[in-house]
């Protein structure tokens, strides 16, 4: 056995192409596909440095302002829905500076002058404007509030206060809305650089990185395109931990729901619930700013991954794979080994004479089959059965030894003629007797739904080859050649 293994090893070694040069040059130039096991986003050094400088400068400015009276900044608060607004507060929580961080934020802020107002008043005005402008409604009602204050106690107290105010503003009779309150972590340079690269608030960047930490497949840039309600739903789905609190429940009313998504998916692949081997997974996911239900389901033979647009219910993608890694787990779906033995017994009836019986589940050309081997009356049989239906796909027997003819059982209960009868037909056609021939081989073969005996022998200088229909005894083919 070792010798065969060595031959295999040598053969695979011989055919392995040498692409080291290309690999090295592409790994240096960054070409090719190399994003699969990315665990943490690595940002270009220049961006990290710029962001770090930004954070330091910001810190210095904030520090200077702290000592300049009522305008001293004690905390920086940013509010994200999709509009993003940043407010600087003094130690009495009065707004000393306010600015919009994106276009939607500018729309919300408009001509409002909120400098000098208490944070509660400012929040009332801002959230009110967001509701009026349709950024917060029954379908999307999550707010991210992030607080930057080095004093941990003050930070927590301010977060609690803001959380209370915002929740009372967004709650309606039918939905409570969700508020994510984050404590800004100044030491998180990844978040700082991401915020600066994608032009989002530090709080949103921190939230996105927390989500990415839970699922390495997430792309920060794609997450950044989503609003806070979507991020809040994803956060709930993946159970990520954040540096702060999550209160309330984000609305998923805008989406078609898991039940509908499942029905759409099943209709698309023309299967019913009965064909499915249990819904394995259904998750609200996102792809490049689009929310979708990702449904993973298994049938006996295949695994499907179907993406359904969560808003429209359209099929976004459908992937089908053969279940080659997992079919053993499903063996309960296949006929039992005893059933296989019963089927084989139709061909080899005296089960006491069975020797070396082996029965294995295999995948062959995408079909799960039982491969069965056994010796019976000196003949080695190999059967291949469809593991679901029990249909025999193919039968092979090894060279037939004439010495075994006498006691050989025939598969008579299948209605096939005996080997001797088949041989006699051919001998009759050749005008020969059994004692005239040499080198006899007889094989029972199953091909194109037809059972046949393949018979070969020699007589003098001639070689005979014939095929006999094993059901009817009719000679299908007959050849006589001069034996070289």
């Amino acid at each position, binding site marked *: *056995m070792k010798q*065969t*293994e*060595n*031959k*295999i*090893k*040598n*053969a*695979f*070694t*011989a*055919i*392995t*192409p*040498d*692409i*080291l040069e*290309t*690999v*090295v040059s*592409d*790994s*240096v130039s960054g*070409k*090719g*596909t*190399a*994003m*699969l*096991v*990315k*665990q*943490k986003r*690595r940002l270009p050094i220049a961006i990290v440095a710029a962001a770090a400088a930004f954070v330091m400068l910001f810190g210095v400015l904030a520090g200077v302002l702290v000592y300049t009276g009522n305008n001293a900044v004690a905390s920086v608060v940013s509010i994200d829905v999709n509009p993003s607004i940043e407010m600087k507060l003094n130690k009495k929580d009065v707004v000393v500076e306010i600015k919009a961080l994106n276009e939607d934020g500018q729309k919300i802020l408009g001509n409002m002058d909120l400098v000098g107002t208490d944070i509660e008043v400012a929040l009332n005005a801002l959230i009110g404007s967001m509701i009026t402008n349709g950024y917060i409604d029954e379908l999307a009602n999550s707010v991210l509030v992030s607080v930057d204050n080095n004093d941990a106690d003050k930070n927590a107290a301010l977060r609690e206060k803001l959380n209370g105010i915002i929740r009372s503003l967004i709650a309606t009779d039918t939905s409570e809305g969700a508020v994510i309150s984050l404590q800004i972590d100044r030491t998180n340079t990844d978040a700082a650089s991401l915020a600066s690269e994608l032009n989002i608030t530090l709080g949103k960047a921190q939230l996105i990185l927390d989500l990415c930490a839970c699922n390495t497949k997430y792309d920060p840039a794609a997450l950044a395109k989503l609003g806070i309600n979507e991020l809040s739903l994803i956060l709930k789905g993946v159970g990520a931990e954040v540096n702060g609190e999550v209160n309330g429940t984000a609305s998923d009313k805008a989406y078609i729901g898991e039940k509908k998504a499942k029905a759409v998916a099943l209709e698309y692949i023309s299967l019913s619930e009965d064909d499915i081997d249990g819904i394995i997974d259904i998750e609200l996911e996102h792809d490049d700013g689009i929310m979708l239900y990702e449904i993973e389901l298994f049938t006996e033979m295949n695994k499907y991954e179907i993406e359904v647009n969560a808003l429209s219910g359209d099929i976004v993608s459908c*992937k*089908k*794979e053969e279940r*080659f*890694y*997992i079919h*053993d787990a499903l063996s309960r779906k296949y006929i039992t080994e005893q059933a296989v033995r019963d089927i084989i017994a139709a061909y080899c009836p005296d089960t006491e004479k069975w020797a070396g019986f*082996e029965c*294995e589940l*295999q*995948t*062959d050309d995408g079909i799960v089959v039982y*491969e069965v081997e056994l010796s019976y009356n000196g003949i080695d049989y190999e059967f291949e059965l469809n593991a679901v239906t029990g249909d025999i796909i193919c039968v092979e027997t090894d060279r037939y030894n004439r010495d075994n003819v006498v006691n050989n059982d025939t598969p008579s209960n299948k209605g096939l003629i005996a080997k001797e009868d088949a041989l006699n037909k051919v001998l009759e056609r050749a005008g020969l007797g059994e004692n005239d021939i040499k080198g006899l081989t007889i094989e029972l073969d199953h091909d194109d739904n037809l059972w046949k005996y393949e018979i070969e022998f020699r007589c003098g200088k001639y070689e005979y080859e014939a095929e006999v229909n094993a059901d009817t005894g009719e000679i299908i083919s007959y050849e006589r050649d001069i034996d070289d």
Partner: protein
Amino acid sequence: MMLSGLSTAHKTVHTDDRRLAELILSIAGGDAHSLGELYKLTSVSIYSFALSILKNSHDAEDVMHDVYLTVSASAASYEDRGKPLAWMLTITKNHCLMKLRKRAKNADYCPENWEETFALSSDVSTEDAVIIRMCMEKLSDEELRIVTLHAVSGFKHREIADILSLPLPTVLSKYSRAIRKLRKILADGGTE
């Protein structure tokens, strides 16, 4: 396929896990030579495993290329749990599955003709070509994967059971059955 100009010196089938882990850590530290050594120690395993899933030499070569780029880009995030080659094979499997998905979308994919693949190559002997063809054509998908992981990459059956998520007895019986099958075919001169 780049079969011309093949040297055999780069192909050592060897799985010294500690050395591989050191190399991955050096790659994370930016050492370009380490990637070369890692390649020499693992390329046969990676290519064979890719080939056993994809059954196409061009696709397996593409995947091997992408695997080393991924390893290079992800080395910094590699956590050494004593199984660096298994980690690389997981990356290989993922790239292969991506390839299969692409193939599923491409209606005009045709299976490789193994008789022709090595016909013109002076680097692959007739016997090696026959063995590869027999492996590709006569083994079931699962048998092929198990055979390459054990015979080529030197994984123990228990490790293969982990890699392929199969019960150990299944791996053992499929392996011995596959080897018996191949031995029989090869004894008959590769003609079955």
